[in-house]
């Protein structure tokens, strides 16, 4: 079983970090195999940013996205650039304040969260990606909640853990709620 995930947004939104945390969660804490790659061509803050995660029960062969099962987007430019990477019937996960889907997205399952707005409410927009990861975990279940949190815990400096835990749970609970609706 091969699962392909693509994250897209702008430099500074933690798109690369989100991919790394997800891939590591699957490989190290869920005991699966994964490969994480990122686009190095536009690292500058404000430029396009994207990362890719392949999760598999077996060794990952082709290490990048061919037809994404999940597309997680945090900017309109990423929506424009990457929507065609999502496979038919795939799941589109977006920050609803930053991405406005058009009719091209009508055949996808769409889940929306105001991740950046929630992050500002919690106290720092920098945790928007962690809210997104909580939301992603609840919606998709491709990585367990425990594994995702452990992977976040290892990546984030200790003094920001409490803030990130609130962010993760906020996204997760919102995802649980959306899934039921």
């Amino acid at each position, binding site marked *: 079983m091969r699962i392909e995930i693509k994250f897209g947004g702008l430099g500074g939104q933690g798109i690369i970090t989100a991919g790394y945390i997800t891939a*590591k969660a699957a*490989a190290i804490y869920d005991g699966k195999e*994964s490969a994480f790659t990122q686009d*190095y061509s536009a690292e500058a803050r404000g430029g396009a940013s994207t990362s890719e995660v392949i999760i598999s029960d077996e060794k*990952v*062969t*082709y*290490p990048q996205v061919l037809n994404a099962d999940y597309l997680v987007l945090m900017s309109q430019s990423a929506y424009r650039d990457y929507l065609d990477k999502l496979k038919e019937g795939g799941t589109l996960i977006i920050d609803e304040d930053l991405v406005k889907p058009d009719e091209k997205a009508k055949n996808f399952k769409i889940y929306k969260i105001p991740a950046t707005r929630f992050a500002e409410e919690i106290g720092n927009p920098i945790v928007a990606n962690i809210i997104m990861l909580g939301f992603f975990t609840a919606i998709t279940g491709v990585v367990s909640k425990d594994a995702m949190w452990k992977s976040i815990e290892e990546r984030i400096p200790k003094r920001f853990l409490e803030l990130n835990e609130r962010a993760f749970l906020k996204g997760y609970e919102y995802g649980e709620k959306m899934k039921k609706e």
Partner: protein
Amino acid sequence: MKPGYYFWSGDIAAAEGAIAAGCRFYAGYPITPSSEIAERMALRLPQEGGKFIEMEDEIGSIAAIIGASWTGEKVMTATAGPGISLMNENIGLAAMTEVPIVVVNAMRGAPSTGLPTLIGQGDLMQAKWGSHGSYEIISLYPDSVQETFDLMIDAFNYAEKYRVPVMFLIDAMLAHMYEKIYVPPEDEIVRIERKRPTTPPEETLIYKADDDLIPPMPRIGEGYKIHASGLTHNEKGYPELTPQAQEKLVRRLNDKIRKHAEEIWKVEEYKTEDADVIVVAMGSESRSVRLAVDLARREGIKAGMLRLITIWPFPYKFIEKYNVPYIVAEINYGQIYHKVREYTQDVELLPKMGGEIHKPDEVLRAIRRMVQ
């Protein structure tokens, strides 16, 4: 590192593999996509009692590790793109003076500065023929983060055992890709140390080879008279600029690798036993080929893959072994293709100029064409 599971990039695995192999000296000049190797070594070598030096350029970097190797340390540098071109003069020096070194080349799109952050496989021939002269070196090329770590230990063992530069190839994709990796316990890592002279300094000729064609290597500063010259030299190490000395020395430098080639060869034979068509691939490219082989099998096409892990000395017997059509899939305009053609007429090239590996579909189409 403590044994266990880690989530590392190919670059980190290359650095940690080198440390596990016993490398304690690194001199380098950072360049994408190899910079994270230097970064990791700068952090880790001091923790392990080793030395990291950031040099003024690539020429200085390789010169520094050649010098350091004479002190008895295991040494490495890493570079890419234009950096490996700069290092090639001194790779010849290390081959001529028989100094164990490991050079990592993280291949990127080329020529010139090309595509610094994206994959290329244009340095496969350069790995062997980069320096002037007719000489043999060893070149290895892994396809995963785990294999990068494991193979790096072999790279150091080969360098030490055969007293030869080992060109450790990775590529931009592997360098920056993260995967799970298992670091084995210390007592499971097999390390080979270079032979040392068993006779006292006054009775030792430092370039007199044993029956295996490899001379024992003294450590500088222990009383042995060490004269290491890039000029053609005699067993004493002194320049002897004659055709006879050249014949003896250069023939031995080549033969010490050629005669041990089968011990050095590493090739993965993936679904080749019953194959009707075989794709030859290396490094990250082989990951796409592996998937394409599986897809072809699902269509009833008996495809297989020969994955060359040892690139040099070229493992030609594996090509001769199968009497089937070959495809060589590589990220250049035909390099290893020509090597394969030396051993079979039935071979097609699937090239790509660089920046990405082939999509599995592209390889699959080539496989279908070949069996039609």
